[in-house]
């Protein structure tokens, strides 16, 4: 097997995990597929692009600002629009996120046109050798950020009081509400942090590849594929699902040609849906009599 394809596939898989992280958490806690997730990823890329154009910031300098801006926007959006819809009827929130996705796509086009953009910054076009295999420095950055954010998300969700509250809200909103948990706030914070992580992913996307207003769908689909592979709301599963997706894509392209790249991914997607709909990386408990 081609060692370069394996290494690059795993590193890109880290980026895919990052794409899916927020989607998985929102799906796991709010029980809604955020159809605006891809657009929020691309929003991060455009915010960094605009900050670069207006403030002269490079991609990495823009990261903290993008995080804060989208965190606030995400909180307000969930608190004052989506939660109300979600509590009434989940389909309302689903449609609203789709509408949000369309609206954001329109804004990107109006403000920056339909052409491709890419972010500039250190490491963006740098190469590096890992175990004697050539790769891109930015792939390592993406992978490192994915590892850190997945680890932080895992620890927060599983080892902290805040995480216990979120898990309680995810498990049973009614009981959690009776226990004094402010469900609306939990939803808003979860959505805001997930959106901010998606926006960070967008900045890295802009530095690593390129983006247009139409890129949203591509990354939403990538996110959904990873969530299906890894298991809904399962942070470590999502991370491993991303790695699996990147690896399969890269090895398929190297071994059989680029035309097989998408086929193998969707084949894997359907096989997993058919055999393990709960996700490849979710442990199933045996019920004993």
């Amino acid at each position: 097997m081609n060692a370069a394809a394996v290494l690059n596939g795993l590193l890109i898989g880290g980026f895919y995990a990052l794409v899916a992280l927020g989607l998985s958490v929102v799906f796991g806690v709010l029980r809604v597929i955020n159809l605006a997730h891809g657009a929020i990823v691309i929003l991060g890329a455009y915010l960094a692009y605009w900050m670069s154009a207006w403030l002269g910031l490079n991609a990495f300098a823009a990261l903290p600002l993008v995080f804060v801006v989208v965190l606030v926007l995400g909180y307000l959006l969930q608190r004052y629009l989506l939660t109300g819809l979600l509590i009434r009827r989940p389909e309302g929130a689903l449609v609203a996120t789709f509408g949000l996705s369309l609206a954001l796509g329109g804004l990107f086009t109006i403000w920056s046109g339909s052409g491709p953009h890419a972010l500039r910054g250190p490491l963006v076009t740098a190469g590096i050798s890992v175990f004697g295999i050539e790769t891109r420095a930015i792939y390592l950055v993406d992978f490192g950020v994915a590892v850190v954010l997945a680890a932080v998300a895992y620890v927060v969700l599983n080892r902290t009081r805040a995480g216990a509250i979120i898990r309680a809200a995810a498990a049973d909103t009614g009981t959690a509400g009776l226990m004094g948990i402010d469900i609306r706030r939990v939803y808003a914070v979860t959505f805001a942090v997930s959106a901010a992580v998606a926006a960070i992913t967008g900045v890295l996307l802009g530095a690593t590849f390129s983006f247009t207003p139409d890129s949203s769908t591509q990354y939403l689909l990538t996110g959904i594929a990873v969530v299906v592979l890894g298991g809904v709301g399962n942070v470590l599963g999502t991370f491993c699902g991303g790695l699996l997706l990147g690896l399969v894509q890269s090895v398929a392209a190297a071994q059989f040609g680029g035309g097989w790249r998408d086929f193998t991914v969707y084949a894997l997607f359907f096989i997993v849906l058919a055999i393990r709909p709960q996700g490849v990386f979710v442990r199933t408990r045996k019920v004993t009599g």
Partner: protein
Amino acid sequence: MPRTRALRSVIPIAAIALAAAACGGGAAGSADGPVVIGASMSLSGSLGVLGPPLEAGYQQAVADVNAAGGVSVDGTKKKVKLVVLDNGSDPNKASSQARELVLKDQAVALLGFTTPPIVTPTALAAEQQRIPFVTSLTPVRAFQQGGKSGWKYAWDLFFDEKDQAAMAAKALAMAKGNKKVVLFTDNEPDGAMERPMYKAAFQARGLTVAGDYTFPVGTTDFSSFITSAKAKGAQLLAAQMTPADGVALWKQLRSFHFAPQAAFVAKASDAEYWWETLDRSAQGTLSEGYWSPSAEPASAIAVVKKTLGKKYGMTSGNMAGATMAYTAATVLTQAITRAGSTDPDRLDTAIGNTDARFPGGHIKFDRSTHTATTPYYVTQWQKGVQLQVTPPLKGVTFEQPTAGLRER
């Protein structure tokens, strides 16, 4: 009584039929109003970046014909009105808008946009409506392939894909090095069609195809292909891909230190965003040119030089697009005057009889294919502008190796 009832039931049907007759028959248009020409264009969506210069070309052509008094229809001069709808780069929408322009706006003819995925469904809708359709910016073989049973009302003026492949091969053969070329093509219809043409043209020029990589549109990671290309020792690169994928490939070529002697990329690199997005990494990229101001007589291009030329700069990719659009619109308006009518069949015959020089070149349609072939050039990005390098132009040097990919 039964007769009265029968009459009553006939009246609404007759009224509807009369109303339909009054509203329909878009080709007839309004007797007193302007002559309406419609265009479904991609002003947003994935192809939206290509829309504004083409729209500007159409608008300028209409403004110029109106400034000259308009078109002659039935012995009287009439102004031309251009109705443009944004199809959002959606082929289905382009098709339905073509019908809307004919049925609702009473367009007597339609102008096209660019690329086969948008032009073909629009042209097919025009054929269904029996309304003349003129387009440019769609390579002629792809256009012919779109009309499976032959075109009747649709016409295209642009370059031939075989010329494109031959010119790309000629440019790459001019580069120093080992003559090994790697080919990157996506799976869009034009990429699939032109891939064998590129390979044949490279072999004809004595180049060896060391790597042949195909991939779906939207591919982000090209690392396995680049690693393979390097391992094969290729020193030349040719690609045909969408703008977003092209930008991603170029960034990765730099990361993997693959700096070919010459690198040609069609479709992705022929507009200003190539330089704006990649900056110095774009230096030396061989790109495509389908219009060269230096190849046309000064008298033919004077009309666009003072308007579109001022807006876009004469050598820019946007200017080439705008000029070809201007040419398509002028071919149509001149045909209306020659036909002296907006009758679809008379207008169609007049379009087919076109044989004249326009800003975009000499246009003479082949009646069997409904296409007019215009020249193809290879250009090179040098300090933010595209300069023609094949055929060679006096005062322009073909820079090699590809400096933007070599820079550290």
